[in-house]
């Protein structure tokens, strides 16, 4: 099945119906393995057991940026290739991305309090992630503000591509500015600086959360396609109703005219 085949929503729905149960099972297994590896991971010599927060904070932080990347590709799909499922993908991803960003912010805050002595600091990394969260909320609001999804899609696509500038700012904020947040220790030139005892559970959890995103995203896209079918059927129903009313009133007028003439 090619990308062109998936442009057909019915074929996409058939594929998701087949793939979703397997994805859900794989996600559950990976999450269970990841949580077990996180639970048995040793304490850090400086941070103690609080290092366990990293196993959920970091995957959520990565996904908060990754989901915006997916939405940016979908935005290009809407504006350049006019792929029929591009805006469906973008709309379905936004609330999931917002949830991951929210979790990255809150778990980071809960990790920061014992380690930094504060829940929040207006430094570059934290502030740029907060901006990302607000941008997700903005996109969700824009989708809801415009009734016609195809009209909303173009505005959202432009805004998504403009907002993509924030992704490298988030990633490199710890290098460009002096921040309280630590620098990159996994995705960096020269390889990870983290011990395998922490790196492996972290990567398993990252993979599990990525699969969770794929599963939820496909399910949410399926819902969005169904919602659009409901909308088009409701419009058909309204059109049928208004033509019935029109025909009815014409017949009524005709009978009035006939009785008047008689």
């Amino acid at each position: 099945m090619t990308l062109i085949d998936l442009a057909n929503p019915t074929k996409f729905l058939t594929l998701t119906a087949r793939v979703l149960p397997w994805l859900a099972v794989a996600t559950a297994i990976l999450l269970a393995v990841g949580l077990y590896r996180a639970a048995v991971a040793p304490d850090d010599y400086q941070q103690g057991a609080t290092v366990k927060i990293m196993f959920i904070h970091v995957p959520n932080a990565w996904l908060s940026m990754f989901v915006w990347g997916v939405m940016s590709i979908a935005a290009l799909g809407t504006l350049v290739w006019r792929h029929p499922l591009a805006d469906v993908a973008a709309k379905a991803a936004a609330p999931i991305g917002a949830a991951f960003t929210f979790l990255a912010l809150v778990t980071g805050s809960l990790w920061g309090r014992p380690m930094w002595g504060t829940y929040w600091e207006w430094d570059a990394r934290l502030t740029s992630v907060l901006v990302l969260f607000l941008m997700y909320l903005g996109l969700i609001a824009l989708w809801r503000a415009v009734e016609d999804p195809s009209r909303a899609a173009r505005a959202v696509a432009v805004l998504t591509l403009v907002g993509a500038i924030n992704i490298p700012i988030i990633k490199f904020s710890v290098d460009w500015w002096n921040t309280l947040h630590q620098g990159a220790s996994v995705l960096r030139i020269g390889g990870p600086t983290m011990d395998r005892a922490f790196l492996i559970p972290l990567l398993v959890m990252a993979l599990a959360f990525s699969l969770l995103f794929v599963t939820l995203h496909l399910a949410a896209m399926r819902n969005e396609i169904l919602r659009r079918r409901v909308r088009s059927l409701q419009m058909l129903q309204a059109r049928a109703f208004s033509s019935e009313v029109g025909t009815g009133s014409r017949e009524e007028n005709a009978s009035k005219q006939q009785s008047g003439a008689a």
Partner: protein
Amino acid sequence: MSLGPYATFIVTSYTLAATVVLILIGWIALDYRNQRARLRELEAGGIARRSGRGAADF
């Protein structure tokens, strides 16, 4: 497994993550049920897609 003096922060983080993920799953599952029900309702009322196929069929 001892979580040390900051157990509250660790447990709260995991509980919150689980809650948000469960809310997402529940919301998506509920939305799916709602959309399917609305499609069936419309089709039962005689409204059909131009293709003639059932809108909820795939």
